[in-house]
């Protein structure tokens, strides 16, 4: 920021690709989505797009399935995020211990993050198959259950399976971030506390947790927004079923656009998600202090 004006051109030059890319890949598609939300668009008849005003939005807001999807998305997001945060912090603390071979454990435990969603969803359908799935077999043989659980056939169990999938895949993200933060906490803090006679729990409460607070808040906001928006996990695992008990808004928007041949309505649902997202990011900005004049740098 203290450089001479002379190479200002380089700076502008470096920005040009981004400006172009943001225009093409961010602004344009969103603008197009907003436009679509005001027209009736049957994908079988792409040439006929009458303007319908706010009809699509009214349709969405009056559709009980939209609200059902909304509340289910909240349940899904809430449980997923809380479990990810709790398990993630626990695992990160465990992985932070100075033990031999820790790198191998780290690798294996972070691994789910890179497994393609298609793979996990298929595996889940196979593991949780109610008739011949291994999960039922193991639970039966251990004696935890007396009869096979129809995992993906009852609303609560299907939701639980979807949450498990999400937790399995994305807890590593929390672990990665928390672990990185743990590595930056000065050990002197702990040494001083030890001298003062603080036990493990007190040290966690008084030192670790406050140090983690900021990064945790950031991670939780992120995970909340992402989980809320997720499409593939649920689409590939349950397609929103049984009934509509695992629908979320992304699935709702997709199904309106394609299965129901109402692209405009799908786009309106998307725009509503976008508004919710804006609210969420406001929260993020408040929480992280992002954009405030940066003293650290």
């Amino acid at each position: 920021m203290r450089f001479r004006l002379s190479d200002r051109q380089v700076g502008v030059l470096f920005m040009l690709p981004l400006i172009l890319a943001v225009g093409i890949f961010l602004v344009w598609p969103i603008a197009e989505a907003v436009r679509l939300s005001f027209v009736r668009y049957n994908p079988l008849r792409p040439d006929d797009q009458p303007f319908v005003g706010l009809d699509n939005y009214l349709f969405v807001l009056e559709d009980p399935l939209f609200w059902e999807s909304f509340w289910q998305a909240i349940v899904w997001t809430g449980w997923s995020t809380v479990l990810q945060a709790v398990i993630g912090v626990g695992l990160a603390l465990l992985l932070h211990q100075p033990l031999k071979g820790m790198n191998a454990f780290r690798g294996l435990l972070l691994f789910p993050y890179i497994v393609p969603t298609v793979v996990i969803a298929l595996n889940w359908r196979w593991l949780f198959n109610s008739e011949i799935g291994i999960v039922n077999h193991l639970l039966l043989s251990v004696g935890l259950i007396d009869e096979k659980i129809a995992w993906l056939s009852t609303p609560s169990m299907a939701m639980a399976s979807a949450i498990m999938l999400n937790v399995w895949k994305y807890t590593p993200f929390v672990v990665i971030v928390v672990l990185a933060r743990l590595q930056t906490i000065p050990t002197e803090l702990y040494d001083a506390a030890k001298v003062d006679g603080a036990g493990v729990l007190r040290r966690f409460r008084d030192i670790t947790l406050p140090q983690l607070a900021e990064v945790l808040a950031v991670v939780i906001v992120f995970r909340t927004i992402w989980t809320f928006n997720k499409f593939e996990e649920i689409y590939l695992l349950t397609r929103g079923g049984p009934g509509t008990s695992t629908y979320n808004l992304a699935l709702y928007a997709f199904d309106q656009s394609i299965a129901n041949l109402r692209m405009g309505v799908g786009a309106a649902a998307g725009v509503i998600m976008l508004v919710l997202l804006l609210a969420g990011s406001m929260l993020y900005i408040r929480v992280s202090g992002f954009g405030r004049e940066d003293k650290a740098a």
Partner: protein
Amino acid sequence: MRPWIAAILYAVLGAITFVVCFPLLWAISTSLKPKDEIFRWPPTIWPENVTFDAYRELLFGGSVASAPGAGVPPSAYFLTWFGNSIIVSIGSTIISITVATLAAYSLTRFRFWGQRSVPYIAILGYMVPSVIFVFPMFLTMVSLELTDTLFSLILGYVCITLPFCLWLMWAFFRGVPIEIEEAALVDGATRLQVFRQIVLPVALPGIIAASIFSLIVSWNDYLFGRVFMNSMENLPLTVGVMHFFDGTHVDWALMMASSVLMTLPMAILFGFMQRHLVAGFGAGAVKG
């Protein structure tokens, strides 16, 4: 640390690791089972008769067609899909990383109007659900007559990878001290020389972390591939393997073998880059 504490920690870690890895172990076990063993109840934990038929069918296409002259079975496309996925993942990553690195450097080293709001926009873009992007992007591809091309998929993936790459690179460059650059500039080096010789080497860990992220995201995508692509030979892997779900018959061994093969490239990449990943993500998230 006392040995018994270490022993307990190892035990806990071992148990958790087993649970976490179990789905993939089970996929491997299933992929090695012959057809008649797959539907057995109770299931066999490890196949009684190990067979590599499923892998052979995927990798060498020597498939057992259900009827003579029955046309090409979907499994014959596996390697083609694999190649497609590699192309589109690398393609979109190159675009995203190039754009993001240049812009992030510029954002942290120069002062100009709107500078502070760019990371905001990136973070917003990062959170936009892909279901919003997919149809407008698709319609755009239609008007450019690019649908069903790998190039369209590369562009589609830039939508979902660029914002985070930009954000990561921006956070990374903010953490790189500028004194060396200043000194070099004072010594008469040009800005481009500084960028190439001093900045890029320092930024490499950030570039690697962002690339891995971008590769993972594009390799794993299903939605864009499903909507953009038509022809069997142009599908990415994720969409292609869903074709193994024949209407009345699923070859679970084939399914699980392709799961394993599909995860493999990412696993290898991850194995090599794990440390950079932790460092890079950490930098991004902590800074942001």
